[in-house]
């Protein structure tokens, strides 16, 4: 079983083996290891975004240029992406996004619930296939599954990293 400490390392290796070279992110504790690894990797572009919808558009541009990317965001950021996901549903641009969930299992911050609970329905309404991951093994397996679904199958795919996996932030 993948431990808490190493599952993100495994995910990073999977992404790099799949030739993902653009890592778009809005800073988030749940994605800290992936963000730090991409920043330290001279062979990839780590792109800090001011808002998550920038990442959806960035990765459409990467696809026009024959490159692959991943969007790392928190569930609240999904709400910022809705109209930009027209690129994926209408333009059939592939999308791989890893979403760290808030406002679900064990959450104590009331501000996180509206978007946290709406994340999966909103993504699905815009045609994004959602894979939920509750354990470290699940996270690795889901990312492994999502890579061909996105880049060969031509889909938008979101891996939702739940608070069962990440833990709820104490308040």
């Amino acid at each position, binding site marked *: 079983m993948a431990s808490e400490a190493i599952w993100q390392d495994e995910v990073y290796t999977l992404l790099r083996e799949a030739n993902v070279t653009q890592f778009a992110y809005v800073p988030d504790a749940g994605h800290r290891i992936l963000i730090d690894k991409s920043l330290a990797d001279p062979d990839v572009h780590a792109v800090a975004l*001011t808002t998550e919808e920038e990442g959806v*558009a960035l990765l*459409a*541009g990467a696809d026009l240029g*024959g*490159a692959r990317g991943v969007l790392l965001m928190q569930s609240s950021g999904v709400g910022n992406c809705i109209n930009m996901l027209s690129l994926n549903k209408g333009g059939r*641009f592939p999308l791989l996004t890893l979403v760290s969930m808030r406002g679900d299992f064990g959450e104590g911050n009331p501000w996180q619930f509206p978007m946290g609970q709406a994340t999966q329905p909103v993504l699905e309404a815009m045609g994004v296939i959602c894979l939920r991951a509750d354990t470290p093994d699940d996270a690795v397996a889901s990312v492994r599954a999502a890579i061909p679904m996105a880049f060969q199958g031509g889909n938008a795919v979101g891996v939702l990293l739940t608070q069962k996996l990440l833990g709820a932030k104490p308040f």
Partner: protein
Amino acid sequence: MSEHPRAAQIAAAVKAGFVLDRRTALPALIGRHQDFLFVAGLAGTSKDIAALTDDGAHVYTMAGAMGGATMIGLGLALARRDRKVVVVTGDGELLMNLGSLATIAVMNPPNLAIVCVDNGYYGETGYQQSHTSLGVDLEKIATGSGIKRTMTVQLESEIAGGARLIREGNGSSFVLLRVKPTDPPAYKRDFDPSACRVRFRSANLPR
């Protein structure tokens, strides 16, 4: 000849310094379009670039996903360091995603140029005034965002300098092309975002 239905609006814009005609100024600024890969923002600028290139396969035009053009250009420029990428977008679309200028400034790829065709109005929705004809200066926002190579082109005599800025240099560039609010060319381009994606990739991906 009957008077233009928006003659008073156009006269006011000219008085405020928006004097160039996009139909001649933008082609002059771009020059040989075959030298570039283009991302064109929705509405007016997609018509401009489709007309200039005869809806060429080196162009990705948009008619939705407003605010996305600049970031599509960044992703394309990072993926294709061997090609010069020009984003052509309007003031209305750029106002929707000002933060992307900050993101682009931080990455600063030298093969990316942004041309904002600024007519001060939302042309596609009936020529309502945009913020740029009410005091907002997008070149200053680009400069403040950290883009080092910027220029405002609002006179015929400034076009050649703008053309050099987008073709040369060691960092991303930004040209604010001020034009009067007259219509872009009436060009019927392919509106299918998926067909345009396939066309662009088929024509431009290295084999």
